[in-house]
């Protein structure tokens, strides 16, 4: 742990790391809490639903215990024998030979196989609006068209449909499918020896056949009114695998006379009893000991994910649906498929076990079912009550809740992410601004211009700590800088008294030793004293130059005239000083003698570094609102290393021989730079082409 910075406020919970931690925890916990809530609610609802369903099943079972005669109306069937089974369907089917609109009824399909599995097909029957609709899927990879044999259609693949009408007369229809889907219907006698086109009108019977990957499917529709009260029906598939082969016939072989199956197995009394007891969206089916359906009421509405009304884009909908399916499958597992679960349930119930199960249904999300055995006082099992209930509603609520949680979570996370982004963007901006303000406190030469940091010092967070820390450091640096800058003045001040003592002592000694040969030593001492005084004055003057400049008023002067006059006089002293520029007409606001001082320094510099007997060129030109004074000399060039500190105080590149006793402390270019900057300008240097010398430039703003 580092030491706390003095004066820095302890921030506690306001610290950024705690703020970020709090935001992160909220971000993480939001979807999890929502998920847990939904899961708990879902469990509760499922348990409630299961309990309620079991109560319904029990009450119905008890009801039928009191009416055992309703369960004993049908002849006993072999449990091994499949039978035709008519379902109540809720929507009409398109007779197109396709299974697309049979998804809800597929679970109730009856399967027929020949002993040697040579012929195999499934039959699904449905009843709606006094119409019987049927679908046969024949699993036969070698379908032979009736058109193949012009002599005898009976040797091609076809369906034989027989029924008994109200007058107890048998009718035998032959349905021949064609590759284009059309079906030709013929009628024949019981021996099948006389074939003639069916004469019924188009509303009597419609059929369509389509070949598919497994064989072919034949779909038909006929009015139930064609059949008698018991609706006796027999179906048979005729399969011929090769031309001239013997057709194989596999009939449904129902329990009635001549192999008919009575489609209407339902007991009207049982139906009425169930209808009176049924409440809500339940499907209740009553089975006898042979699992014949005796009565059925209600239905389980199908509803799937696809019916969700998302308001988002298709892509988003796909992603969301996929995501939700994953979630739903983990929170609402189903134990199997309908065609496996329902028989298992019924068989267990027949064994005297009350059982509940859930399973998936094609194109639907799930069924919850309770199978309750009907047991009389003698402990005989009379039948089974099967109560089925869609868990759509429950799942719908769950889905809606999850949808809301997902949406709210996404919105919340987006909001939090946006907040975090804004927070960090703001933080970054503040750090940058603090950096700029801090940078502005120090000039390019590393001098602290001001210790007053005017940004973020009142903030209560870590940035405020940082700003206050920087301000404290700057104050210390400025104090130290002030101490350093005062050293020459302090030194000058403190040393002047002893210097005065020496000076006056030497003066008196000089009077006394006026004629003495030792006077030459006295004179040397006086010269040394004079040099020391010069050094002190220069140091003190340079140290207080900026302060002095601030107190000196600027005037409008003609820079061209100043330099022209200045150079004219310099040329008298040193003819190699040449001026190249206008003699008047470039005005600026300046302290003239300070510009003279700067020129003195640059000219001294050029004289010291030039090659003997080479000219020093002083130039002046105006470009826009800037005037540039150049002083160039031939001589050694300046290397990059020297240039780094060229304009710093007390930096000299002069060779030792030219240092002199009291002359040069590397203050000249520092003075030039300070004067230039005071006038809003800048001083720079450049080596002459071919490294033949150096040119210094003072760039000053002109006054138009």
């Amino acid at each position: 742990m580092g030491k706390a910075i003095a004066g820095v406020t302890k921030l506690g919970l306001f610290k950024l790391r705690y703020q970020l931690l709090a935001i992160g925890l909220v971000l993480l916990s939001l979807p999890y809490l929502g998920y847990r809530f939904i899961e708990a609610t879902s469990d509760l609802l499922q348990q409630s639903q299961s309990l309620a369903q079991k109560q319904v099943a029990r009450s119905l079972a008890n009801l039928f215990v009191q009416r055992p005669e309703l369960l004993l109306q049908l002849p006993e069937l072999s449990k091994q024998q499949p039978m035709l089974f008519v379902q109540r369907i809720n929507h009409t089917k398109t007779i197109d030979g396709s299974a697309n609109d049979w998804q809800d009824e597929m679970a109730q399909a009856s399967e027929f196989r020949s002993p040697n599995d040579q012929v195999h097909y499934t039959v699904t029957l449905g009843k709606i609006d006094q119409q019987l609709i049927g679908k046969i899927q024949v699993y036969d990879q070698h379908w032979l068209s009736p058109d193949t044999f012009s002599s005898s259609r009976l040797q091609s693949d076809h369906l034989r449909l027989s029924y008994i009408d109200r007058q107890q007369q048998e009718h035998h229809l032959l349905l021949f499918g064609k590759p284009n889907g059309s079906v030709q219907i013929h009628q024949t006698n019981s021996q099948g020896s006389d074939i003639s086109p069916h004469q019924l009108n188009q509303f009597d019977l419609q059929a369509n056949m389509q070949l598919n990957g497994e064989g072919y499917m034949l779909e038909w529709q006929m009015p139930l009114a064609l059949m008698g009260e018991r609706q006796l029906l027999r179906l048979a598939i005729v399969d011929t695998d090769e031309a001239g082969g013997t057709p194989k016939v596999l009939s449904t072989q129902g329990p009635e006379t001549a192999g008919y199956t009575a489609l209407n197995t339902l007991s009207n009394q049982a139906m009425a009893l169930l209808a009176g007891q049924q409440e809500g969206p339940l499907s209740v089916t009553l089975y006898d000991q042979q699992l014949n359906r005796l009565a059925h009421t209600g239905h389980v509405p199908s509803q799937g994910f696809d019916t969700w009304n998302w308001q988002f884009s298709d892509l988003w909908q796909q992603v969301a649906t996929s995501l939700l399916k994953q979630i739903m499958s983990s929170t609402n597992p189903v134990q199997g498929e309908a065609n496996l679960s329902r028989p298992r349930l019924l068989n267990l119930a027949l064994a005297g076990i009350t059982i509940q199960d859930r399973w998936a249904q094609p194109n639907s999300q799930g069924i919850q079912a309770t199978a309750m055995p009907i047991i009389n006082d003698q402990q005989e099992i009379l039948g089974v009550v099967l109560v089925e209930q869609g868990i759509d509603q429950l799942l719908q609520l769950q889905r809606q809740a999850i949808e809301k949680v997902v949406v709210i979570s996404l919105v919340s996370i987006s909001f939090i992410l946006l907040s975090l982004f804004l927070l960090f963007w703001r933080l970054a901006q503040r750090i940058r601004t603090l950096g700029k303000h801090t940078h502005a406190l120090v000039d390019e030469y590393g001098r602290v211009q001001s210790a007053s940091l005017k940004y973020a010092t009142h903030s209560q967070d870590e940035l405020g700590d940082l700003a206050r820390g920087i301000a404290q450091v700057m104050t210390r640096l400025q104090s130290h800088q002030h101490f350093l800058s005062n050293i020459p003045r302090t030194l000058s001040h403190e040393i002047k008294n002893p210097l005065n003592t020496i000076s006056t002592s030497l003066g008196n000694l000089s009077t006394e030793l006026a004629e003495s040969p030792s006077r030459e030593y006295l004179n040397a001492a006086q010269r040394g004293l004079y040099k020391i005084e010069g050094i002190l004055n220069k140091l003190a003057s340079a140290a207080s130059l900026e302060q002095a400049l601030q107190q000196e008023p600027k005037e409008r002067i003609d820079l061209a005239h100043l330099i022209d006059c200045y150079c004219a006089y310099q040329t008298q002293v040193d003819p190699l000083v040449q001026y190249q520029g206008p003699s008047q007409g470039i005005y600026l606001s300046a302290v003239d003698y300070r510009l003279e001082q700067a020129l003195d320094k640059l000219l001294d510099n050029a004289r010291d570094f030039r090659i003997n007997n080479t000219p020093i060129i002083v130039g002046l030109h105006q470009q826009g609102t800037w005037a540039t004074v150049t002083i160039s000399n031939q001589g050694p060039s300046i290397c990059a290393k020297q240039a780094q500190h060229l304009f710093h105080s007390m930096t000299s590149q002069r060779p030792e021989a030219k240092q002199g006793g009291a002359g040069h402390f590397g203050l000249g270019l520092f003075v030039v730079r300070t004067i230039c900057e005071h006038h809003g300008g800048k001083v720079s240097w450049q080596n002459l082409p071919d490294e033949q010398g150096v040119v210094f430039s003072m760039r000053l703003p002109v006054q138009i």
Partner: protein
Amino acid sequence: MNHQPCIAIVEDDKDQRQNYVRALECMPVQVLAFADKHSALQALTQQRPDLLILDIILGQEYDGGFNLYSQLNRQYPDLPVLFLTERVGEIDQVSGLRMGAWDYQPKPITIDYFIAKIESLLRLTRNSNSSQESNQITCGQLLIDLDRRHLFWQQQPLSEFTMTEFTMLEYLARRPGQVLTYQQLGQATFGGCVENNTISTHISNIKRKFKALDGDFNNIISEYGQGYRWRN
């Protein structure tokens, strides 16, 4: 019988004080030397000196010289004073001049210049006390009363000129139109060669004091690179 002028020196540094006294022994003057403010005040309230030479820092008292002069000035309003001090800041100079000091001389000083300065001040003292007509020169609108060390511009008195500035202005005004180099001005004013910038700073101060009285003053012309000249 000639009256010997009395020069009082207040300097806390023993060596410097002795050197001043020793240097003045060659002059026909009476010298009173004091090491501190208290002894000086006690003696000088009894005897008025003709010239007072004061260090500003006396012992532990940072403004001891100023305080001593302030007390003596109440008793002797026209007492000529030379501040001879290591404090060379402009604020100190202005403070001293505003209190009525005749000159403000920074240390270190050479004995020759010290004696010349004393002689000059004594001459001024004598002349200012004389009832005879003052020695004056006129240069355009500038009137210089050399004896009383008074300056007038457009008949308005100019004040707060140090002896250095007075001498420099006199040197310029006596040679109107003539370019006086930095070396000449340094020699005339300081008795030797000084930095050009030192001369320029004094000229700037002189101009500022003229402009305080006359905003259009433009009679001291900069001859860039050489020096200055007075223009009538």
